[in-house]
């Protein structure tokens, strides 16, 4: 243990210029106590270096400061607090725990402090501290930290050793002085798609546009041809920036020049009142120019001459061309893989969205298939499920347990709601689909307002258990949050369950019979009313489950169902009714397409949604009965 500390202190000492070493911790703290209390990232650097230079006690102070465990008491003492224990930061004496709040340096300042601690932390006996140091280096490593990192490459922990080796390579590329070592490091990592490697490569390959009469000094990336690689306007702007060309005159400038030359209500003989005509304005300006009253404006021919006289280059900021060549090669080799992985990631996002739409729409599809009615309150059943889960969570603190209770309970509650709705409303409106649509809409607005009255308009939290937080990360490009994976699994589960009920149970057989021909089914002894009620309950129950799922990754509000209801309708319409595979296909199509359109225009999610709906309207033209249309007699009804 002391040996580690000693090495750490030694490493730090080696890095510090001799001049700052002389001060004691007391002295440093005493004359910059104000800055310790109210630090700023911009100015705190030298102070941190001075404190670090004072030795282990100073490093402990810095660590506590960064961890927000340093307290400045009213008496002006600095204490390091850990739970109920407190020690004096300067002397190390045990003290009474103070009442004051710890100092709270902002995250920029903490970054500076942690960066100063890196050298000592790299060799800390605690693996957590060493990992923290590596985090800091990965976030903001600088050239000074490369030697201590190289000195500390050996690590008893194989994971940390691997990270250190990787970081060493990355930092060599960034801050190394020996081109051969940098090229070697680049080549060793070529093909890697990780974010940190790309983060190192891209700055190396950053270029700027230079206009010059001849090939410029420096590492030229390539020469640009005006018109082909470089828009003419950009080239002209570059020439104006360089001072090689007068800027063109704007209409404001022209007007100002004319206004400055008004004599007796006339400009160069033209009455002011006529100057509202742009042609007369130009002519008047030319007249002024001819008389020498205004400077000549830049002309097209001047611009053409300047363009011809200059060549345009992209210049690397990095001076060494071997390094940039290697970096370019490494980047190219990563590009294809990167593209493929981005595609995979997009696919995962799409799959996740599709499974949500599937869960939300399946109930709607079932009821539509059996009874030909659209339940506008379906969205509110989704909401009901989410609020059920929220209520369960307020009663049961354990999140896993509450989720386990909430899922079947949400199903039960919405199943019951569905059955009640069927008995009270829908049954009486059989064969009147448009009336049903409106009546269930009435139920929808009543339920929504009820939810507002009971739970308030504010979003309610529904928190996933810890094991569902975080994400499954394959690499820096492909990752998906665990909760979405869980929803996908849930969707699969319900697909399976649904198929089982439909294909393997008596209820399923009867449902299929009623769907295909209600009259015939009734004459075979099936009670269509009971079947309709059961399917309605089942569809509503699944909506409740979907509500729990949506609440887990988004927000629980009374409008939660509204956000999904139109998409669910679309899914049903696009997929085709009465067939679970149709719903699946519809959900996959809508989910996939949404994500593709979104990725084509990442700045505008709204436009993506608009195009999605337009696509559906057009799609219906070609397949009015959906992807998988219903067959048989029922289809004609």
């Amino acid at each position, binding site marked *: 243990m002391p040996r580690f500390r000693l090495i750490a202190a030694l490493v730090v000492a080696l890095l510090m210029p001799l001049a700052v070493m002389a001060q004691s911790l007391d002295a440093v703290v005493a004359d910059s106590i104000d800055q310790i209390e109210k630090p700023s990232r911009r100015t705190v650097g030298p102070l941190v270096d001075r404190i670090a230079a004072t030795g282990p006690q100073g490093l402990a102070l810095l660590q506590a400061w960064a961890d927000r465990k340093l307290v400045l008491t009213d008496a002006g003492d600095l204490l390091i607090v850990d739970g109920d224990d407190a020690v004096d930061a300067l002397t190390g004496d045990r003290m009474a725990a103070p009442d004051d709040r710890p100092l709270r340096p902002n995250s920029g300042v903490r970054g500076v402090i942690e960066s100063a601690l890196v050298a000592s932390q790299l060799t800390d006996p605690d693996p957590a501290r060493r990992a923290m140091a590596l985090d800091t280096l990965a976030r903001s490593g600088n050239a000074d930290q490369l030697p201590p990192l190289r000195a500390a490459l050996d690590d008893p922990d194989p994971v940390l050793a691997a990270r250190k080796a990787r970081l060493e390579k990355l930092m060599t590329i960034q801050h190394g002085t020996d081109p051969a070592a940098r090229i070697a490091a680049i080549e060793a990592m070529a093909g890697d798609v990780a974010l940190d490697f790309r983060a190192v490569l891209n700055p190396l390959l950053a270029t700027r546009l230079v206009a010059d009469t001849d090939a410029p000094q420096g590492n030229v990336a390539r020469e640009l041809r005006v018109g082909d690689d470089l828009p003419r306007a950009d080239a002209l702007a570059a020439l104006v920036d360089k001072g090689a060309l007068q800027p063109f005159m704007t209409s404001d400038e022209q007007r100002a020049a004319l206004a400055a030359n008004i004599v007796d209500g006339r400009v160069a003989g033209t009455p002011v009142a006529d100057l509202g005509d742009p042609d007369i304005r130009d002519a008047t300006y030319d007249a002024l120019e001819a008389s020498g009253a205004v400077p000549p404006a830049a002309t097209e021919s001047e611009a053409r001459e300047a363009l011809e006289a200059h060549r345009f280059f992209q210049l690397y900021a990095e001076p060494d061309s071997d390094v940039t060549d290697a970096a370019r090669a490494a980047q190219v080799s990563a590009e294809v893989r990167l593209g493929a992985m981005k595609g995979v990631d997009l696919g995962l996002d799409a799959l996740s969205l599709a499974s949500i739409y599937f869960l939300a729409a399946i109930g709607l599809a079932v009821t539509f298939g059996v009874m030909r009615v659209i339940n506008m309150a379906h969205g509110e059943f989704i909401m009901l499920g989410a609020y059920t889960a929220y209520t369960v969570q307020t009663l049961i603190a354990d999140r896993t347990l509450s989720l386990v209770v909430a899922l079947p309970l949400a199903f039960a509650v919405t199943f019951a709601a569905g059955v009640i709705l069927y008995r009270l409303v829908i049954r009486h409106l059989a064969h009147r689909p448009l009336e049903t649509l409106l009546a269930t809409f009435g139920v*929808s607005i009543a339920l929504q307002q009820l939810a507002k009255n009971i739970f308030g308009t504010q979003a309610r939290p529904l928190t996933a258990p810890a094991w569902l937080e975080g994400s499954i990360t394959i690499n820096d490009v492909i990752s998906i949050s665990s909760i979405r994976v869980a929803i996908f699994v849930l969707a699969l589960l319900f697909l399976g369950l649904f198929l089982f009920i439909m294909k393997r149970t008596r209820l399923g057989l009867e449902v299929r019979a009623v769907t295909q021909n209600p009259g015939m089914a009734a004459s075979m002894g099936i009670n269509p009313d009971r079947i309709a009620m059961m399917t309605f309950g089942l569809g509503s129950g699944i909506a409740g489950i979907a509500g729990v799922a949506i609440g887990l990754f988004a927000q629980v509000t009374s409008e939660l169902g509204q956000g999904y209801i139109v998409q669910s309708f679309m899914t049903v319409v696009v997929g085709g009714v009465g067939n679970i595979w149709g719903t699946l296909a519809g959900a996959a199509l809508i989910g996939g397409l949404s994500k593709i359109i979104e990725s084509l225009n990442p700045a505008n999610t709204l436009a993506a949604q608009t195009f999605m709906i337009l696509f559906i309207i057009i799609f219906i033209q070609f397949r009015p009965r959906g992807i998988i249309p219903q067959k048989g007699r029922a289809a004609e009804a």
Partner: protein
Amino acid sequence: MTRTPFILRNRSVLPVLAVLTAFTIAVTLLSHAYGSGVIPTSMVKVLGKTLCLALAAVAMDLVWGYLGILSLGQMAFFAFGGYMIGQWLMYARTEDIVAASLAQNPIPPTPLELQQATANQIFGVVGSADLPTTWAFAHSLPLQLMLVVAAPGLLALVFGWLAFRSRVNGVYLSILTQAMTLALALWLFQNDSGFRGNNGLSGLQNLPGLEGVGQAKVSVWFLWASAAALGLCYVLAAWIVSGKFGSVIRAIRDDETRVRFLGYPVEGFKLLVFTLAAMITAIAGALYYPQAGIINPAELMPIASIYLAVWVAIGGRGRLYGAIIGAVVVSLLSSWFTGGRAPDIALPGYVIKWVDWWQVALGLSFVLVTLFAPKGIAGIFDLMPARKDKA
């Protein structure tokens, strides 16, 4: 064969026109501008807007009650009409202001400068300074007035043609109309759509060139215009649904396939009525938004169209005056209950605040009307002559 004039065949036309005229005269005589001032200007505006909503409901009834298409996107045409007139109102007013401000410069502005400065005033709020191509006609009142009916009409024509051609009907068609209005709303919500995004068009109550007249008078004028439009369109709608044409479209509602077998071009009939209704709705919208003062994409959200259907259902669909009754009663009741003036009901242990419970009551009453009174409020009128017959 003698043909009775359709006015006599439609027994509702004369009473409706009479009530409308009486109402308009009464409001005028009680208004601030032309009468005793008992009805404040804000109330005149509310009444004028209600007439526009009634007009939209009449068009909705034409489509739903007579043709059998439950269009859940009708308010898209309403708002579209509003946007079209709003473009001119906003452009012309802004141009006046800008011209006045540019006149301070020593050099008179070129037409382009005037247009650019106007565009900058209108679109500065969404961070743009160019006039989008959608505003190409905004400077001209006649052109924009034409667009009020032409643009929504074209939208209805294209949409209807696509939908009817592929025989989309019933619930599918309802969902599709809903998708149409949602797509339009989402598109308009974008700031770079050329219609000022979520800001919408505002300041529409100020008529360009008539700044000095005052809202008290302008609001009465708009009430007159709304009443005239409602009266005219009511007569038009009554005429459509009476003769042979009316019989055909009712037949289409009841059994489309049979009408097709009889050799009628079903799609053509549907398209004609759908487009006409869209145009009437657009006129209603063009009269509504100058009274409301602001139009914004939220007006196109599907919920607004569903409410329109609700009014028609509650009023009694399949009869034009039913639509008017529904729109007037429900929208006025809604504004009274949500206005915070309805007294709260104090139950032991709980106070029912209408602000909170009105929506619940509305939703449930709607279920009840559908279940137990499919003819709506207008069904009451059926009961009265029935009693007379019995007596």
